[in-house]
């Protein structure tokens, strides 16, 4: 973020502006680009009124103290709240979503305890980047449009989960079982699915550049218009996987087993299929297809 004279120079200046001129604070906050996250970490906001926070502007409030603040709940949900103190806050809506976010940040035991007494609500746009979700039971939890970059899901129970339009860049799903998980339009750049088992997952329009899906299994998954350069699908296994109209240049399928995979109208420029069994693959209309070194290429539909 550039300081143009109107913008506070650092986070302490932001806090000072809020204390002295709240209208000026919110006006300036609105001018921060909607793709940036405003750093307001480790500050003491206790007792202040944050309810005028502009929509679509993400703040990192990790480690900050919001005790007794007035807040706009739908905005606060989109802020990063790791170790944020939320005691006695007053909201314009019920605080269930915030309690759930706090439970997610509290670790596996805290989450289990919270979940045993609460039904998870649907979180939209939460900022949970970097969260450690190892071993969590996330059955039927919905975190659509959220930020989960770098999150660690290893060992978690991932059944019926909603991750539509969620940012999962660099997240770890290696070795996980993902059953009926909705990853429609999710950002999966550099995401690790090595050895994962994906069953009946939806991945339409997901972006998987640089993702690692080596030795992963895809069973009944639908990933139409999947995109991404350099996805590694070596030794992966596919049953009834729909990847029509995918754009997957430089993807690696070496040693993969493509038992009924639909890759029609896809861009496979530079893709490698060395040692892959493509007997059940449908490549009709695919661009840049090179099946050199593939097994049963004669049986594939091209």
């Amino acid at each position: 973020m550039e300081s143009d004279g109107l913008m506070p120079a650092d986070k302490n200046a932001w806090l000072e502006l809020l204390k002295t001129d709240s209208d000026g604070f919110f006006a300036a906050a609105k001018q921060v680009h909607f793709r940036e996250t405003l750093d307001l970490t480790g500050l003491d906001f206790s007792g202040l009124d944050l309810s005028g926070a502009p929509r679509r502007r993400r703040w990192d409030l990790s480690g900050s103290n919001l005790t007794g603040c007035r807040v706009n709940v739908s905005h606060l949900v989109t802020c990063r709240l790791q170790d944020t103190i939320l005691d006695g806050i007053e909201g314009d809506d019920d605080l269930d979503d915030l309690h759930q976010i706090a439970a997610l940040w509290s670790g596996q035991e805290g989450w289990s305890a919270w979940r045993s007494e609460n039904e998870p609500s649907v979180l939209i746009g939460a900022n949970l980047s970097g969260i450690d979700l190892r071993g969590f039971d996330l059955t039927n939890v919905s975190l659509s449009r959220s930020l989960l970059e770098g999150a660690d899901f290893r060992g978690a129970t991932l059944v019926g989960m909603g991750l539509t339009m969620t940012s999962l860049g660099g997240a770890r799903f290696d070795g996980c079982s993902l059953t009926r998980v909705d990853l429609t339009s999710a950002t999966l750049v550099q995401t690790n699915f090595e050895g994962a088992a994906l069953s009946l997952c939806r991945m339409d329009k997901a972006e998987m550049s640089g993702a690692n899906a080596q030795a992963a299994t895809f069973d009944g998954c639908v990933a139409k218009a999947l995109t991404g350069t350099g996805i590694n699908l070596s030794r992966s296994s596919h049953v009834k996987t729909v990847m029509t109209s995918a754009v997957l240049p430089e993807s690696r399928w070496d040693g993969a087993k493509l038992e009924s995979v639909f890759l029609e109208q896809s861009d496979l420029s530079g893709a490698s299929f060395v040692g892959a069994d493509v007997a059940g693959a449908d490549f009709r209309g695919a661009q840049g297809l090179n099946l050199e070194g593939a097994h049963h290429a004669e049986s594939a539909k091209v």
Partner: protein
Amino acid sequence: MRLESNREKESSGTSTDALDASEAPSQAVQLKEKAGGMGYADGVALLTPSPAPVQMDAISNVDTAKATFGMPTWDSKAADDDSKGAWVDAAPARDSDAGKHADKKGNRADNRQVRGVAANAGDVHAALEAGSLSEADVQGLDVRHAQQINPLGDAPVNILKNTYGQSWNRAKHATVGKGAGAEMVMTKLWEFRQWHHDKILRETQAELAPGELSKWAAAGSTTLTSDIDVNLKGSNTEKAVKVFNRRFKEDKWAYEAGVVYDVNVYALDFLHGKTFAGVERDGQRVAAKEGDRAGEEAGGVSLSSPDAAAADAMHQEVWTLVKMRLYMTPTEWDEYKGGVDASGSEGAKWAEVESRYANYRDTLRAEITSVSKDTLAAADEADKTGISVLNRVAHQKAEDNAGVVDKETQSEDNLIAASNRVYERKLKEMKKTRTHVKADIDEYNELIEQGKRKSNPFSPLAEEEARMLHQEINENLEILRDLISECAFYSNEAYLTDGAVNHAVVGLQEGIKIHQTKAESLHAVNENVADCLKEMARHGENVGEAGYKAGKYMWRLADAARNMGMSGGAIDTYYETGFELANTIKGGGTSPQGNTGPRGAYDLIHTHMGISPNDPAGVASLKGMTRSVGIQASVWYKTNVGSEHQHDLGSTVTKDKH
């Protein structure tokens, strides 16, 4: 509600005993209020200023009706102010002047469920009213005892709970066609349901914040076997569904409302405030979709974004095919796919349908059994439809519970409860998504307005944000519409797609002459094929029953096919037969052979379609023919419409015969 004396009505104001017309409303209201606090006899006496009897007109309020009428009954057309249907007095004889009540337009007719029955303590059957009689006892009951059940009292609850084990299905099967006494008991249960579900809805409304549940519309015929589908309106109908289901159970019922009395409540789906008013497209009226915004007044996914619009249409089509799969066996499904896609070029589409079907099936199985995926490994059985597989899972769970006596009802509840819980969960996501899209649209509209201003116009950031919002709204609407369809699939017996809902409700039920895209018409065809198969399977004992129940879907599928431009052959046959079944036979009319009801339905199907005999084999032929019509329609669409013309408008939807 109006009060008027019989004499006034009979003698056109010549009676000196009649209330003066100019004074009548205020006096009547005062008297009614006073009478409401009295017993029936005293109330009537108060309201009778002369020896002439006073006719109590229609009353929608249950408590007032209970205090007013000795034996209340439901008149489905009578109006109390603007209500459609109200409680009236059962005592006047059939079609007597006193038995006729004015509807909202002022037309008077006798549409009471029970006629010519006054309260008579001598005929009250204590054991019946306590629910102590068995189903067989009720079948041998003298009708005069059943007539004495007050539908606004406690007896219907006792009977439904004790005699019929809280199962509407059991009650229906043990009463309809099983003697006058039994049918009268069912009539009283039907009347009980009429007010009781409304009471739960009012409690639901009271629990929610103002506006979250503003009103509701209940659809269902007056036949004893009909269900009631309640479409909720308001700003948080998604929450209202869950509250209704919970409050119903808290009313001391063991099962879901769908099991106890066949009432299902639905959140706002594709039919919203602006749908019926419609908007103009290419000089034609189309049903407005959710998400109208600056530059996109028709709502929905913008046709100016061809990829998103095509994806949206494909999502909708896939849901219609998932519904078809649910009501086909694996073998029938394979035959269907082979018929539509002889060249095998659409494997990806079928794989997507099967993935979603498996997702739905496994989600419900997991919800029913509360077990892990590993336990759900059993494959579909070749001779069973998808819904039969689910029923089997639900039944198995009931069998496994040694404490359950009524396995059938418990099995039914297992499946409906699982559907309801998943539906409620999915609705939460739908509500959040809806709120998110609406906020995006509000912000987008504001930015567009800002851009139009001469002073303080768009900043570069605002312009970038508007462009991003435009794209995001389209994508979110595509996701929302997909989610609405998915939610509808988990609810019981609702259309899944925009096209099928608007065709049936806006076009054929409301008679609003809209146009639909050819893709939407195909979706309506597919859904109605599935509904035909569902009803034909449910009522598979003979062709007459199957046709009687499936007739409206036969009509709708053929009508939708005609709207997209298909005609001749089987479509004409289905249209002619379906139209007569839905409008003549279901309306109480007769076949050319002079028969009514299912027998009349069989006459029409036999005559027009050549199907016989009137037994399960005949039903199998009817189902086969329906699947074949579905195949023909899809093949016709691929050949004559395709992706290039899928958004073209078809011909006018009209409920008039054409």
